[in-house]
């Protein structure tokens, strides 16, 4: 068992856990946590792939950096949408009974 294989397998497991969470969870924040866990899993496989004994491949590192920024951008957009929906719900539910 080498470091590369260990983290590759851990990455696949994280991807699986995240996939299950994103389908099975209902709450939007839980779904987003699950998607981020999936992302971490992919990045882990990628960074494990970058290790070749003493040589470290910089390309995967750059790809993961890009991936992290894209993931946070997507998460923020989803949260913003969720909060907007929530705000609409709150104003209407307050208006209706009065």
């Amino acid at each position: 068992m080498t470091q590369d294989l260990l983290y590759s397998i851990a990455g696949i497991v994280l991807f699986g856990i995240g996939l299950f969470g994103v389908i099975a969870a209902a709450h939007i924040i839980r779904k987003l946590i699950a998607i981020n866990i999936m992302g971490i899993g992919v990045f882990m496989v990628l960074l494990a792939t970058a290790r070749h004994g003493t040589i470290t491949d910089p390309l995967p590192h750059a790809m993961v950096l890009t991936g992290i920024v894209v993931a946070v951008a997507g998460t923020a957009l989803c949260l913003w949408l969720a909060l907007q929906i929530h705000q609409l719900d709150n104003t209407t539910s307050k208006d209706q009974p009065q």
Partner: protein
Amino acid sequence: MSIEIAIDAVLAGGIITLAGLSLLVREMFTAIVLYVSLGLLVTITWARLSAWDVAIAEAAIGAGLTGALLLVAWRQLHDAAAKTERTNHVS
């Protein structure tokens, strides 16, 4: 070498456990806290894989900012929910 692998195995096991827990716990706040601590462990992992640039970015953006955004959003959803519940109760 074997100690190195043992450290890696513990790290990987910890990350997987935290990932599973953060999807299983009932409290959403606990889930977010677990996710942020997962991010910290992941940062250590990236450092172990000698991906220093990624480790800095993960700590700042991956764990830090994502965690902050999740917390802020959760607080709003939670506060409003508590509020409506209270008003419903009063009326």
